[in-house]
């Protein structure tokens, strides 16, 4: 029973929060609601018994990713409202609505095939983290390593991209070209 309550609660909150993310003009609001939504999503994971995933979600998303966004925001002027020309909004909502409709219809349809056998079944009495660990380090070892490498590459890339010309002020009204010109003149 509590599962039902939790599900609907989380669902409602998540959808609401994400709507704020998508609709808000203020980056700060958007980011905050996004972070909150992600926390709630980890709630889904806990309900679904994917404890480890939930934890990773909290750490990686809410912790790392959102932290990154916060830092990034500091480079931009986040206090101002974003001025956007949100044209074609009819088309946007039509497409969004349509895709939602179709997806919902598809997922709401009863699933016929029961004959799906688990490739890597969960084990009774074994903790989720343990289970995940076993599969991750046996069957998915190579993807896992590749992912690790990818993260490393991404990290370096992020540092290099963001770290260029950190000595220059970004708040002055100067375009990058002008900055470069100034630099050349020195």
């Amino acid at each position, binding site marked *: 029973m509590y599962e039902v309550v939790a599900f609907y609660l989380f669902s409602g909150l998540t959808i609401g929060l994400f709507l704020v993310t998508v609709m808000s003009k203020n980056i700060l609001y958007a980011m905050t609601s996004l972070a909150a939504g992600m926390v709630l999503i980890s709630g889904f994971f806990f309900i679904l018994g994917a404890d480890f995933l939930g934890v990773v979600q909290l750490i990686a998303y809410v912790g790392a990713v959102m932290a990154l966004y916060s830092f990034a925001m500091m480079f931009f002027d986040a206090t101002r409202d974003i001025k956007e020309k949100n044209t074609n909004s009819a088309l946007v909502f039509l*497409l969004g609505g349509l895709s939602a409709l179709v*997806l919902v219809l598809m997922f709401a349809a009863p699933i016929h095939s029961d004959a799906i056998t688990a490739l890597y079944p969960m084990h009774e009495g074994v903790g989720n983290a343990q289970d995940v660990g076993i599969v991750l380090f046996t069957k998915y070892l190579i993807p896992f390593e590749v992912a690790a490498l990818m993260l490393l590459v991404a990290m370096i890339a992020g540092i290099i991209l963001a770290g260029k010309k950190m000595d220059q002020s970004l708040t002055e009204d100067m375009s990058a070209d002008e900055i470069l010109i100034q630099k050349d003149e020195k």
Partner: protein
Amino acid sequence: MMENLVYIALFAPLVSSLFSALFGMSKRQTFVGVIASTLLFISFLASATLASHIVSTGTPIHVTMMDWISAGDLSIPFGFLVDQVSVTMMTVVTLVSTVVHIYSIGYMDHDKSFNRFFSYLSAFVFSMMILVMSDNFAGLFIGWEGVGVCSWLLIGFWYHKADVSREENPSISPSWAANEAFIVNRIADLGMLVGLFILYWNTGSLQYDVVFETLPSLSGSVLNAAAIFLFIGAMGKSAQFPLHTWLTDAMEGPTPVSALIHAATMVTAGVFLVIRANPLFGMEEVAGVSYFIAALGTFVAFFAASMALVNRDLKRIIAFSTLSQLGYMFAAAGLGAYWIALFHLAAHAFFKALLFLGAGNVMHAMHDELDIFKMGGLKKVMRPTYIYMGLASLALAGIPFFAGFFSKDAIIETAWNEGTLVLWAILVITAGMTAFYSFRQVFLTFEGDERYKAFDIHPHEMYKFVLIAMSPLALLAVVAGFGMGSFEHFVTTLLPEYHMSEHTHHIAWLLGLVVLVVAVGGIAYAYKKYAKGLKRDEALENSFIYQLLANQYYIPQFYEAFITKPYAMLSEILWKEVDMKIVDATVDGIAKLLYKSGDGARRMQSGNLSNYLNWMAVGAVLLLLVAAFSAMLG
């Protein structure tokens, strides 16, 4: 020995043609004509020897030279068969050809394309020899088309003449007439080809002997179809209605050509085909077709004679008369009297060639003037020609003891004998008309007042040697009829015999008398009307019937208005409207559509990431929809 003679008879004209062709582009050389004539004479001698051999032994000579086409089960050799029928044709063809060749040396004397002329003329004889000598239908078709091409070349011999309006010259121009002849013949040739196909697929061969042996085992409808299509072929070559218009237009060619091709030999090829294929046409099952042939022949005999009555063109009158006589031959062949048809063919070849050559003399004398209304009184300067043409006309009119009397009378008698009284009546009337127009022409040309003087023409007689060369034809035109009995005996070893019934036999003298009276009546009327001089009757010349006949029943105009012009128009429409605007435009349209859609799609590449995302979403949603629908359906 005899085989060699066959080859000599066949190839001497070819050698002659090739030899003349060597000098085709150089200036006139008399020796070319002499050598060509000599070679033709050799061919004639060989044919005559073969004829006497066949007469004495009665066994046909059959030689196979080499394979021609063999594919699948079809095997066509170059094989030649010299039997009673073909040897008759060979002798007639080579004899007339030799005379015409010698005649041409004189007639074409002043033409700068003298050598070329002999090349064409000999090539024609070669083709004609193949036509008559072949032992199979395909070989016949080679000759059939070969004579067509030579006729095209020779009709259009004076190709440099410009096109003029139909009122000025009913044949427009030699090259126009040549093309008309070729194309009309091609129409008939298609029929003939189909006839060959029918025979091949039903008998498995195109050899005469195999085909004729197999015929009795075939169904009636096949036989009828074969007979009809073969006869369509014959109709074209022999210019039967409605494919007759080319023959009179073919008179644009030099006169020796008209004499050889359009009177004596080529146009009789159709008759020859029917005679050759007599085992087919004589069958019970195809009696209907044969009767149609006879009826059509009779109709053409009358139809052509009617047009000859009023024509003013010397050569065209003879051409119409040729047409009319071909009708007689078909009537005989259709009624089953093949040997009579063949006999009339031979006799007609002699006197009609003579008539044409005589007309050539007149033309030569009159500086190519052909209007008989502008002649008259020529007998003073051209007595030998007058005699020749007179003899030939007597033969044509069927006056007793001339060649035409025997053969034409036999045909008319046959019509009576078969009980086809309507045909008989028409043929008798036509005989009268024939006599009238023949002598109308002779009298207008040679008798009466000398109208040519008004046009400042100074006629002169033809060269002596030419006149001498014509003498064999004149002789034959007079005496050929006496060989009828032996001829019958000779050819009926191969052709079916045809005897008059007792009853007909008894009243034969009466029938002959009727024809004679009608013919003499025709001559007498012509004499009365024209011998003293030309008195033109405006009222008559303006009457509807006269105009109708003078304009050939408006058939050429009809063809032009309803076939030639619509064809050209349709072609133009097909090209400009259909091909350019529909077929090609569709292709270009597809290309343009692709180009335009590319141009339109280019706008999607706005460079704005947001737009791209929109398009991506559109695509994704579409894919989702497809997935959803296919899931629902499948």
